[in-house]
């Protein structure tokens, strides 16, 4: 990135906002087509049952209803949900579009109704009669592993989806050398992503053109197109996926869902456009969930605080079926188990378990929050055991600056970092020493105050293709139109991250224009070149680099052309103020538009130069990037009620170079609050029958404005050597760094009650019970 910039690194207001703040944007449900029909889906009320029969006759003759289909009707017509993650010896658990013989979670689709309006479709659902034969539901993943447990799939002996292990370093030696070993079970509860916009699909089929157009609220339009074409067995070029405005994803829209294929099928079958908008209840039950790991951790360390080894055993509850990346997510935990520490030996064993629940899959952080959580909790357990300050213990175990690029025993290479610097800044911003003094005072007064710390590293810019099931590159086409206006077409598919603005900043910077001259187009597979999508904090660190490369290609071409027209060496030309001019003889200058016009009129082109201004790049990253940071927070617990109040939050994040600090800050805030949700409030609770009892926002609490204190954010900048922009990515930092800081604070607060660890979420009653037990013990 150039040293002095005009737009890059500046907090520009977002270009996407005017339409959003005026209600003029279009999300899926805002799309209306002539003759639009509406679909509604009947879903299983049982977690596990055999379908004996489905009677749709009443529904079929209900007013407004044009079509009712059951799973049996669809058998063989639509392929199963694809799973891109393959783990050796993994059992198959494909999800049919509608269940035809057996249902395996509450919310699984059994029949679909298409009617002329929403209300009629909904009414008809109540008229379908299904005869179920209930089977024993398998809900608890540990019980699912027991001998004699009901098995989800006929033909399998057990519910083990797969076993996976990763070992690096000499673990035996590490544990032998250790002065001490601490064991702890850590539960990373099941979460529901709750994007504020639920999913939705509109499908339209034009038989003449043989064109199926699918509007879907997705993070991955191109991958979706490929998969839908395959599920429906139509040529890929006859499918077009358009991603309109997307109201949040957080990983839950990084998938291929049954409804997307089903709606495509219905539109083709009926020759009518059809819309399906997920209800919130359907969203809670049937859009992918996140986390759900039971992690048994053993940490081996020396008396001086040196961590020697980690042994991790993970039970990952995958749910009933595989979605796109379901089996893969827990393995990311294994990859990132070193945290930001030099741990010589690590072994991770994962058992993926099938249960009668919704599938788990990527959720903001996807496997890495679990890793950070277990490493950070382990460090605090060691610090508590050794009566060390957690900050000191961390510092002791950081790799040295000269260790970078640092290879972990888990087989990945951290690109660049300065962990002590971010920790120091966080300690300074929070006035950590004083916090500890105040805590001591508060404890004397009988108050229950805890300070929590986390230092984290995460893996972003997903990622080199070798490590990604469907490729890890990204594409961008830049088109300079004859009028001099710029279109950047990105294969990334932003949905709130602000790349319409940051990419425009990039374009304006490189070409010497104004951001308003640069338009960013995304999310339409017929317009934008094939791309991978937006997830894994890759929008800027991969997609942005692709845009950068295409912009640089065109800059070079323009420089060559302007040099030719001006009689100047292209390498001496400057792009600024809508002009291209000589650095040393500023009078040798052409308006940007003049050079563009020359490229299109093609009358005075240098020999061998093609007309036009259009460049496409497919950027393949050499490595992941590894953002990092340090978070400090303070909680106070009401000793009578167990109510945990967050009273201070300081976050220092390092995501390399920053294109727009406003956007980075927004990502950090949002991530921290989502982490707060996991730590304090959120948990998808299934009862013994496999009913999701947190099936509405009436029962599943997500953070509100009034839950949060002011968050102070700070930043250090360690550019990534992996890409020319030096950017790392920031979309998931908050959920990765903040959850352990909050958990460590709560454990710290409860230490006087003899509590070493408490599992999330820190609901009042859970904390209250621990305090009751603790004070009884003290008596």
């Amino acid at each position, binding site marked *: 990135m150039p040293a002095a910039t005009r737009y890059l690194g500046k907090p520009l207001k977002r270009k996407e906002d005017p339409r959003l703040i005026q209600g003029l944007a279009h999300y899926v449900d805002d799309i209306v087509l002539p003759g639009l029909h509406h679909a509604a889906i009947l879903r299983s009320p049982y977690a596990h049952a055999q379908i004996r029969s489905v009677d749709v006759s009443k529904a079929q003759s209900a007013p407004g209803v044009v079509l009712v289909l059951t799973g049996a009707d669809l058998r063989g017509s639509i392929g199963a949900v694809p799973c891109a993650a393959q783990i050796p010896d993994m059992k198959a658990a494909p999800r049919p579009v509608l269940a035809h013989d057996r249902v395996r979670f509450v919310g699984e689709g059994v029949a679909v109704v298409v009617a002329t309006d929403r*209300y009629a479709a*909904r009414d008809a659902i109540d008229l379908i009669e299904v005869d179920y034969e209930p089977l024993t539901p398998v809900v608890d993943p540990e019980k699912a592993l027991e001998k004699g447990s009901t098995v989800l799939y006929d033909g399998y002996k057990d519910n083990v989806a797969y076993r996976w292990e990763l070992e690096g370093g000499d673990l035996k030696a590490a544990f032998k050398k250790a002065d001490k070993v601490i064991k702890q079970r850590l539960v990373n509860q099941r979460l529901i992503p709750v994007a504020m916009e639920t999913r939705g699909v509109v499908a339209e089929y034009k038989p003449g053109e043989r064109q199926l157009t699918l509007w879907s609220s997705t993070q991955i339009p191109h991958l979706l197109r490929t998969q839908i074409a395959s599920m429906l067995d139509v040529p890929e070029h006859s499918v077009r996926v358009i991603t309109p405005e997307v109201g949040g994803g957080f990983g839950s829209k990084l998938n291929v869902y049954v409804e997307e294929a089903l709606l495509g099928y219905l539109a083709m079958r009926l020759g009518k456009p059809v819309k399906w908008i997920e209800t919130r209840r359907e969203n809670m039950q049937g859009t992918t969930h996140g986390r759900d790991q039971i992690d048994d951790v053993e940490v081996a360390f020396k008396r001086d605080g040196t961590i020697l080894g980690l042994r991790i055993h993970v039970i990952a509850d995958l749910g009933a079926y595989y979605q796109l990346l379901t089996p893969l997510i827990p393995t990311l935990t294994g990859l990132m188990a070193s945290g930001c520490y030099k741990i010589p030996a690590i072994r991770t064993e994962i058992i993926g378990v099938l249960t009668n629940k919704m599938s788990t899959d990527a959720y903001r952080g996807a496997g890495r929050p679990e890793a950070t959580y277990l490493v950070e909790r382990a460090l605090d357990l060691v610090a508590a055991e050794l009566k060390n300050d957690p900050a000191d213990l961390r510092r002791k175990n950081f790799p040295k600056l000269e260790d970078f690029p640092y290879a972990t025993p888990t087989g990945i290479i951290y690109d660049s970092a300065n962990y002590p610097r971010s920790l120091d800044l966080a300690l300074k911003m929070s006035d950590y020493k004083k916090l500890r003094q105040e805590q001591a005072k508060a404890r004397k007064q009988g108050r229950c105050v805890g300070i929590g710390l986390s230092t984290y590293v995460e893996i972003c810019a997903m990622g080199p293709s070798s490590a990604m099931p469907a490729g890890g590159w990204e594409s961008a086409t830049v088109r300079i139109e004859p009028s001099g206006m710029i279109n950047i077409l990105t294969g990334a598919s932003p949905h709130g991250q602000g790349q319409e603005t940051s990419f425009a900043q990039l374009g304006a910077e490189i070409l010497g224009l104004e951001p308003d001259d640069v338009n960013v187009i995304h999310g339409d597979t017929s317009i934008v070149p094939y791309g991978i999508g937006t997830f894994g904090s890759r929008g800027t660190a991969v997609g942005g680099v692709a845009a950068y490369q295409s912009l640089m290609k065109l800059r070079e071409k323009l420089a060559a052309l302007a040099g030719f027209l001006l009689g100047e060496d292209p390498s001496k030309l400057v792009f600024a103020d809508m002009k291209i001019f000589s650095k040393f003889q500023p009078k040798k200058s052409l308006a940007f538009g003049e050079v563009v016009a020359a490229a299109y009129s093609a009358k005075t082109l240098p020999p061998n130069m093609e007309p036009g201004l259009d460049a496409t790049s497919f950027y393949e990253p050499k490595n992941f990037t590894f953002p990092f940071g340090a978070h400090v927070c303070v909680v106070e617990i009401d000793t009578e009620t167990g109510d945990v109040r967050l009273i201070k939050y300081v976050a220092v994040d390092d995501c390399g170079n920053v294109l727009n600090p406003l956007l980075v800050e927004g990502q950090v805030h949002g991530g921290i609050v989502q982490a707060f949700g996991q730590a304090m409030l959120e948990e998808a609770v299934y009862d013994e029958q496999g009913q999701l009892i947190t099936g509405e*926002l009436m029962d599943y*609490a997500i953070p509100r404005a009034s839950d949060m204190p002011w968050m102070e954010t700070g930043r250090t900048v360690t550019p990534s050597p992996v890409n020319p922009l030096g950017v790392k990515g920031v979309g998931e930092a908050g959920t990765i760094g903040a959850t352990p800081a909050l958990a460590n604070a709560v454990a710290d607060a409860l230490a006087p009650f003899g509590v070493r660890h408490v599992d999330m979420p820190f609901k009042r*009653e859970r904390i209250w019970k621990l305090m009751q037990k603790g004070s009884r013990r003290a008596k």
Partner: protein
Amino acid sequence: MIPAPFEYAAPKTLEEALRLVERHGDEAKILAGGHSLLPLMKLRLAQPRYVIDIGRLRGMSYIREENGHIAIGALTTHAEIESSNLLRAKCPLLAETAAAIGDVQVRNRGTLGGNLAHADPAADYPAALLALDVEIVAASTAGARTIPVNEFFLDMLTTALRPGEILSQVRVTPLAAHTGAAYEKLPQPASGFAIVGVAARLRLGKGGKIEDAGVGVTGLGPKAFRAEAVEKALRGKKASDKIFTDAARYAAQGVEPLADLHASADYRREMASVYTRRALKRAFARAQGKA
């Protein structure tokens, strides 16, 4: 989430409404602010054949002084109660309780009458109204009758209202001199309803003696109730932290607490005591003219 079809009527006068309610009996539901009924209808847990919208009845939304008490019309919204100067001056407990309900948008729609008639075990007003010992007026084609609040809540979602009756008014006695009252609520984190809510009213005599006490508890059991054992333990005693703590221990006496995802029976029972003590302490401070 879409309600099942129904027939709709929006009478303009109470008489007309009462006739409709009487005519359709069980098949009809009265609709006031709709913030309890419509959620049930959207879930299709309620599928009335007729909906009688009383929201357009004239003259049912008011807060005024009448013969020494304050009369509140059944259609008065939570927001109106929250911001009423008359209530803030003469019975601030009601305004404080209204402010604890849901959120701004809910308070703009929900009505006092609807809240009481619905008798949600986790609703807030019932605690305050029990502590204040109000009277509830029920209208029917046969005329109006008055029901003491203590006899109003019968069970979960069940009140003393008879078929054909419309709750028309709540009558509140203004707080006497040297009286303080407070509402303390432990909200369910997702919905905001009360896991436990306690309203306390204390009238002090000479030397800090508690002459009268009213304590209403909501959220704990299937219906809101007056914590008579707490009141009894307070009456005639000299106010002190200790007496509040001791009395608050009886908050859950004789009640089988509810249990759900958000709070076990044990926790609810315990919190009833904690919140009772907190409400008493604040009521006491206010009775002394503090806070």
